[in-house]
């Protein structure tokens, strides 16, 4: 594998350098029907799960077929997408904000061939490559993060938990039977790159053990003051430590009982790893939302404090998720998001109906606003 140069010269990095040109201009990428009718759409309709039509004031129509995708995607897959787009869509395709793939055609008769093509493509293992769905009052793709595929701080895997979850939720990806859309999100540590804090259901990897201290290396690898100040609970203080071999080194000490395993210290200092086979696992949150529709956006709430990492299919996690989805499907009103439903029936009924256990971990004790989550009324249900 010989190194092939583009012409870049490390000795003269500025030579012929192009910078700050920004992203590609989207105008180059719009399908013609989009380009033409932009800003002049009249209305749309979801014809069936995964198939939308948008009608322009001009009468033009654009049909969109939405296909699910694992966003961890090889160039092989992307090329296959291109093949499909070339065949059906004049070489245009788009991705949604939740990592689905949208194939657009400009007339109705092009829809069936496209759908058939998509539905026919499967991996040898049996999974669909391009399942059609993810619209309306159903469950769409799970937005997620890196997990064990690329990040240094995860407490669980991302792609794996998502695959396991989408497999059990698959019917609802291809259906629109729910009271409202239900968004599932996933983040593999408390940094929450998936921004799961406002999701109907959130899968969150998290640690439950205070950091280990690699005293021998700590001062060499980390800036001790940065590590100390990283801690939101002031659990870390600088401290001299004596190694097994008797040498005294500068390092830190952690007050374990103040630690909430947020991993912020580890972000700043590699000599404070948290990961642990049995300590790490999953927290489930529920009832958040983003849209301003009917009710205001709201944060997700922790509804299961801990589930162990059960590779490769996390059955306790998928079972808890399924229980929530089914209880919600059975009980909520039309247009009612999961969180609105929980608030209407009361969280005490939520736990009952979803058959989830309430434990002391679910009571907020973080910062003063925790107070606001306690019950300051005699209004409650037995």
């Amino acid at each position, binding site marked *: 594998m010989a190194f092939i140069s583009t012409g870049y010269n490390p000795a003269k990095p500025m030579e012929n350098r192009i910078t700050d040109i920004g992203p590609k201009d989207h105008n180059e990428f719009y399908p013609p029907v989009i380009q033409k009718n932009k800003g002049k759409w009249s209305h749309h309709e979801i014809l069936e799960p995964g198939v939308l039509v948008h009608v322009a004031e001009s009468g033009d129509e654009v049909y969109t077929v939405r296909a699910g995708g694992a966003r961890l995607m090889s160039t*092989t897959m992307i090329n296959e997408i291109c093949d499909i787009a070339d065949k059906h869509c004049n070489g245009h395709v788009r991705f949604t904000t939740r990592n689905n793939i949208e194939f657009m055609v400009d007339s109705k008769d092009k829809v069936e061939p496209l759908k058939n093509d998509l539905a026919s493509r499967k991996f*040898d293992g049996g999974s669909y490559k391009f399942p059609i769905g993810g*619209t309306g009052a159903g469950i769409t793709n799970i*937005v997620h993060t890196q997990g064990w595929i*690329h990040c240094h701080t995860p407490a669980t895997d991302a792609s794996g938990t998502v695959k396991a979850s989408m497999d059990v939720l698959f019917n609802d990806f291809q259906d629109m039977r729910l009271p409202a859309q239900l968004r599932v999100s996933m983040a593999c540590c408390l940094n929450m790159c998936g921004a799961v804090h406002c999701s109907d259901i959130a899968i969150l990897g998290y640690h439950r053990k205070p950091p280990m201290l690699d005293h021998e290396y700590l001062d060499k690898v980390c800036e001790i003051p940065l590590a100390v100040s990283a801690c939101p609970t002031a659990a870390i203080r600088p401290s001299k430590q004596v190694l097994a071999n008797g040498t005294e080194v500068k390092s830190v000490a952690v007050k374990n009982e103040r630690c909430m395993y947020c991993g912020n210290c580890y972000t700043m200092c590699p000599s404070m790893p948290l990961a642990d086979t049995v300590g*790490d696992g999953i927290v489930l949150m529920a009832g958040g939302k983003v849209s301003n*529709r009917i*009710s205001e956006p709201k944060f997700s709430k922790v509804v299961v404090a801990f589930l162990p990492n059960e590779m490769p299919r996390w059955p306790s996690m998928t079972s808890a998720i399924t229980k929530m989805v089914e209880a919600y499907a059975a009980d909520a009103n039309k247009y009612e998001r999961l969180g609105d439903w929980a608030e209407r029936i009361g969280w005490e009924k939520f736990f009952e109906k979803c058959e989830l256990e309430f434990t002391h971990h679910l009571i907020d004790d973080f910062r003063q606003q925790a107070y606001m989550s306690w019950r300051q009324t005699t209004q409650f249900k037995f």
Partner: protein
Amino acid sequence: MAKHETPLLDQLETGPWPSFVSDLKQQAEKRAKNVEGVEFQIPVDVVEDLLGVLELSYKHGRTHWKHGGIVGVFGYGGGVIGRYCDQPTAFPGVAAFHTMRVNHPAGKYYSTEYLRKLTELWDFRGSGITNMHGATGDIILLGTTTPQLEEIFWTLTHDLGQDLGGSGSNLRTPADCLGQSRCEYACYDTNALVYFLTNEYQDELHRPAFPYKFKFKLDGCPNCCVASIARSDMSFIGTWRDDIRIDQDAVNKYVENDPAYPANAGAFRGSKDWGPFDIEKEVTGLCPTKCMKFANKKLTIDNSNCTRCMHCINVMPRALKIGKDTGLSILCGAKAPILDGAQMGSLLVPFVEVNPDNDYEEITEIIENVWDWWMEEGKNRERLGELIMRQGFQRLLEATGIEAQPQHVSYPRTNPYIFWKEDEVEGGWERDVEEYRKHHQR
């Protein structure tokens, strides 16, 4: 035969949802076969080793990636995340496995021509594994080695006309919903504005000068399809000031359950039968402000009490349209929970015009005022939201020259702990205790 056994991962090949394992395996195979004769610039078996190290993580439930070293391209402070494996001997193909964040186009529209150029480049100089897309919005090119970074950047800029996105204490790659390109609800052209802002602030995107990361997200309407309100330091959300437009005939079509007028545009066409459409139960009764009435076949909206929640429009898109006097609201401070708990954006600007003709002057002025303040006052690794929390929302108003309005709050303060400024209080704060003692013995 695969380089590493992956019995655990193999179990993720079954089930209907697209299997990333199957995809990784096909990619590994493609590289191994290399029918196109690509002169791979990074190890051929990179994907096999990726599968191998992932299997190891599945075995004992821990990651095998170390903190990234400082790698990047010359003159940029972001766009690349360094990553090294903590088992480089067992998995040499992924010993160094950096990602590059490629700034995605507005609305995430692509031509296949472009995508194919990108895959070609990435097969050649990287693992061929991507994320389409990263959580911020970028195209994530997942896994290459340090020497390839400049080369990839060169090709991207010279041959694809394509720049990197953000990382580090920079402006991050701004993202948008598809907006007016294909959505009748859009109150402004999100694609145009996100493109403008990304180009306008290339320097902020590439060269870290901020206390911490900073995110823009642009939603065309309050449905928030790019979730801007939950995950951007500054969210731009379309809205309008005038009246919802009503087509009474179409309203009655919905009421009559005309099949061409399905409730919520067909979003409930699933296996559950919700029964016939009922405008009282489904629209007027669910309006959060109860500002609608349907009587005598006529729908009326008291627009002065409408909070533009979108519900009625979502339910009857053929009958109801957003107003014509459109613009956007700006909310500030959303972020994930580290350190002080998550925040959603707080409303700073109820309404501002979106005017490409003056280069969105009103908007860039607000952005720059906010940045000036944050760069002046923000501590290292302090997000905008945290600064607002620490110093108070008033400081943000002062920094942007915006007057306090009841719209800024969901409810006024419940405590009387008001900080007055000295010049607001007659006589100021300096007082003579001796003078006071003349009237008040000790």
